[in-house]
């Protein structure tokens, strides 16, 4: 390895991944990364996230600043390479400085393609490529603005979705007769269009934009044929063009991109090119997956002169990142032999394309299960005898069925083999550690379930993480619970003082608050300052700082009198909305914090704890009281459950449901705890989910009577209260512990009796105080009030300098600072 080191020009995904691949092969390598952009390398693929959130690109940064120092990477951000001497591998930087290296890698990426249309240079026309474009789009695309997006490809649709979710009226204008014609066949495109329109985006096909209208600013578009479209903002996303000027003026061979051979070398021996700027065997790629393949081979070329490892091209595939529209396209969308399953209503479209009896491409719309398996089949040119059967099998594939080469994390290019190696070779024992080592799952996060599955398989399903309750303490829940019990801590501040570093991060206080209360069976010293705002004022904080009020309605049953009181309170305190919730309760949304005590007093119902990690709703169906199919009294059992458990805090929220027959109208099989009446008794189901995760509940037991069910469910609930991690819902807890283990504990006579006993003590202390009674006995006079109107004087009134002030600070209302000490 020459002492002169390697220069990488361009800090996009290509530059960064090449840098990492080089360091991975040779930790002593000296790399200099020159990035024209001011930011540290970031994940361009996730750019539309900041279009929606309005955050800066820092959140998309690929590596923290320390990483570069730790790996001795010299990073020159905001610097431009003006010239390259290819023979001497010498760069001229902006400002004239010259530096020579052993080799140079060009990762200059591409620029957005701007068509030669009159008016395209007007303000109000932007491309969609970098954070500054997002910022510009955000600024112009306020609620109600009319936006035209030119280009109905992958990026155009993503841009359209981004602005539509900001409340704009968006029209996508596309030249071709169908959307995403490069990735989709006509069948899928026909189904995609209504799905996009359902997001509130209008689609105009076969429109050739002739010019941008407007004098000072863009005001709209005119199409060939004379038709016009008004728009306040025009986003152009019709394609990209490789950034090859530097290579061209250095005399390197360029065609559409910078021409490279199978070792990623350009026509000059010491210069390589990787990423969107490179042209390999006639192809210029515009996606990230090929970049990882190229970077890996280029790193070999750079660090091992003897190697004969070659790059043989990449499979092109893409996923549309538009919420609510699942779409994956792999390889060729059309071919000599095709198998399709489709359902227009779904919309559902799954297609496998074969060429010479081998997998050549796939399109998945609506249901993208099996993406990893199909990708792998197509990458390996698998022979496929029955394509329909193969499509179905792919959908059912689990982690174990995937080969090592299957890519799991698209954002960071991590394969199953990398995950397995992290477990076997680097000693990672948990999904969390594997994700930290490989960075899988740290991008958009959509692959996390698959990462967990692979890790579970690789560890032989062994125990998950030593999950620290909080990184600032580096102690697990079990360790802390043991010390709280043994050392007799009764308040969060005692625990903080006695355990850990003494320094706190603020994030783990609510977890400690629960732990202290649980270990002390609710006879702890309550420190409200350790509680989340919801638990300080017993209502749910909302996006604008107001709160919502959900009174408890046992089993979802209410009365005309309760409804009247709720209605009156809603009017009196001007609730912004009254809404029936997904949990069969009534929600008064958008009320002021200081009105909470009065609202609770007027309503006169207990707290529904809708804001807390606690027992939430028990949803019921009408059951034997009314229903002609009812075989179990679901309302009665639901109300009893809710009364039995209400007021208890739990590691994460606990929602339940009781159905009077297997038709299951209360959706009890997707609840944390569910009961379903069956012929001859009741089925107890646990760990169901139908939120961010969907999981069918496991059958814990079938019992003859409702009493038996309530008892067993309570034993299980207490076991969960004592053993689950902070924020660990039952759908994660039960698979972690194992259903058999749980069944063994809750059916063990002695252990279940102990659990019940501790439940009763905890419940007795909890039931003594409905939090909403703090309306009459607040823990502090200003529990619900801010400071306006506090203090002896009117707010904002000036007071003089303090008597003992030596310098006599000048009283200032607002105004320039007194410039520090002077």
């Amino acid at each position: 390895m020459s002492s002169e080191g390697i220069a990488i020009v361009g800090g996009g995904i290509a530059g960064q991944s090449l840098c990492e691949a080089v360091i991975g092969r040779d930790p002593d390598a000296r790399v200099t990364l020159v990035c024209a952009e001011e930011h540290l390398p970031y994940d361009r693929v996730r750019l539309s996230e900041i279009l929606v959130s309005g955050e800066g690109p820092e959140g998309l940064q690929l590596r923290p600043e320390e990483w570069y120092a730790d790996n001795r990477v010299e990073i020159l951000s905001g610097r431009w390479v003006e010239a390259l001497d290819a023979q001497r591998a010498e760069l001229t930087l902006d400002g004239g400085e010259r530096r020579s290296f052993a080799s140079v890698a060009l990762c200059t990426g591409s620029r957005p393609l701007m068509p030669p249309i009159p008016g395209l240079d007007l303000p109000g026309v932007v491309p969609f490529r970098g954070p500054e474009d997002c910022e510009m789009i955000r600024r112009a695309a306020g609620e109600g603005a009319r936006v035209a997006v030119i280009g109905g490809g992958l990026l155009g649709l993503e841009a359209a979705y981004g602005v539509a979710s900001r409340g704009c009226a968006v029209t996508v204008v596309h030249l071709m007769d169908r959307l995403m014609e490069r990735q989709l066949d006509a069948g899928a495109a026909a189904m995609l269009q209504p799905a996009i329109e359902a997001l509130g985006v209008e689609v105009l096909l076969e429109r050739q934009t002739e010019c941008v209208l407007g004098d000072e600013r863009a005001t709209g578009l005119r199409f060939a044929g004379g038709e016009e479209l008004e728009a306040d903002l025009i986003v152009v996303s019709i394609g990209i063009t490789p950034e090859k000027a530097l290579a061209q003026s250095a005399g390197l061979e360029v065609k559409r991109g910078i021409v490279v051979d199978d070792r990623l070398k350009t026509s000059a021996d010491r210069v390589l090119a990787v990423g969107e700027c490179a042209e390999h065997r006639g192809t210029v790629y515009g996606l990230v997956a090929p970049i990882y393949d190229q970077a890996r081979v280029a790193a070999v070329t750079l660090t091992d002169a003897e190697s004969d490892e070659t790059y043989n091209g990449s499979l092109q595939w893409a996923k549309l990142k538009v919420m609510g529209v699942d779409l994956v396209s792999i390889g060729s969308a059309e071919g000599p032999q095709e198998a399709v399953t489709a359902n227009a209503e779904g919309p559902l479209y799954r297609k496998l394309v074969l060429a010479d009896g081998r997998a050549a491409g796939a399109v998945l719309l609506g249901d993208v299960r099996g993406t990893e398996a199909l990708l792998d089949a197509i990458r390996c040119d698998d022979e496929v005898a029955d394509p329909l059967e193969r499509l179905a099998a792919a959908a059912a594939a689990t982690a174990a069925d995937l080969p090592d080469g299957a890519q799991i994390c698209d954002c960071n290019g991590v394969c199953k083999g990398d995950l397995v190696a992290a477990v076997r070779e680097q000693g990672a024992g948990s999904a969390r550690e594997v994700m930290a080592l490989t960075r899988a799952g740290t991008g958009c996060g959509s692959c996390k379930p698959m990462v967990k599955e692979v890790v579970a398989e690789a560890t032989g399903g062994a125990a998950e993480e030593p999950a620290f309750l909080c990184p600032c303490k580096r102690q697990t829940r079990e360790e802390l619970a043991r010390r709280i019990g043994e050392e007799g801590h009764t308040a969060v501040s005692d625990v903080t003082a006695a355990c850990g570093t003494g320094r706190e991060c603020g994030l783990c206080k609510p977890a400690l608050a629960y732990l202290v209360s649980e270990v002390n069976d609710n006879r702890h010293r309550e420190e409200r300052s350790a509680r989340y705002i919801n638990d300080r004022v017993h209502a749910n904080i909302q996006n604008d700082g107001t709160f919502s009020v959900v009174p408890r309605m046992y089993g979802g049953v209410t009365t005309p009198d309760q409804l009247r009181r709720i209605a009156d309170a809603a009017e009196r305190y001007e609730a912004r909305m009254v809404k029936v919730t997904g949990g069969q309760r009534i929600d008064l949304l958008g009320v002021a914090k200081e009105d909470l005590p009065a609202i609770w007093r007027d309503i006169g119902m207990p707290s529904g704890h809708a804001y807390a990690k606690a027992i939430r709703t028990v949803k019921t169906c009408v059951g034997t009281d009314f229903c002609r199919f009812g075989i179990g009294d679901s309302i009665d059992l639901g109300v009893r459950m809710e009364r039995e458990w209400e007021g208890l805090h739990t590691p994460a929220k606990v929602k339940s449901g009781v159905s009077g027959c297997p038709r299951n109208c209360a959706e009890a099989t997707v609840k944390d705890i569910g009961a379903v009446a069956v012929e001859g008794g009741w089925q107890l189901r646990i760990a169901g989910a139908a939120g961010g995760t969907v999981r069918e509940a496991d059958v814990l037991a079938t019992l003859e009577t409702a009493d038996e069910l309530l008892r067993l469910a309570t034993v299980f609930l207490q076991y969960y209260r004592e053993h689950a991690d902070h924020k660990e819902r039952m759908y994660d807890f039960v698979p972690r512990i194992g259903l058999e283990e749980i069944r063994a504990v809750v059916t063990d006579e002695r252990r279940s009796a102990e659990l019940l006993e501790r439940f009763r003590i905890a419940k007795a202390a909890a039931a003594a105080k409905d939090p909403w009674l703090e309306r009459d006995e607040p823990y502090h006079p200003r529990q619900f009030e801010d400071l306006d109107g506090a203090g002896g004087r009117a707010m904002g009134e000036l007071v003089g300098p303090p008597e003992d002030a030596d310098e006599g600070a000048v009283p200032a209302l607002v105004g320039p600072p007194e410039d520090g000490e002077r």
Partner: protein
Amino acid sequence: MIEVCAVDDVPLGEGRAATVAQRRIAIFHADSGWYALEDGCPHLGGPLSDGILADHCVVCPLHDRRFDLASGEALTDGEGVTAHRVEVRGDRVCVELAPARALASAA
């Protein structure tokens, strides 16, 4: 210096919002002393006065961004907030407002 409240008005370990000279500020009563920051989180305007206090920082109640109590500096992604000087005089809490942060020029 502008008087905002009495020391008893903010429970130990918590914050409260106040309007001072038409600006919303958050007054914090931490174990380590009194602090004042601009109340709106630069992310999406979350009320920092309702956040959880740790010994040197406050956590925004909406999406968990953290800010240094003394300087207002962001300890997580993104911008920080303006910090104001606080002084306790007898049982009164007073602040001196710093000028509002210049908005990123929207040229």
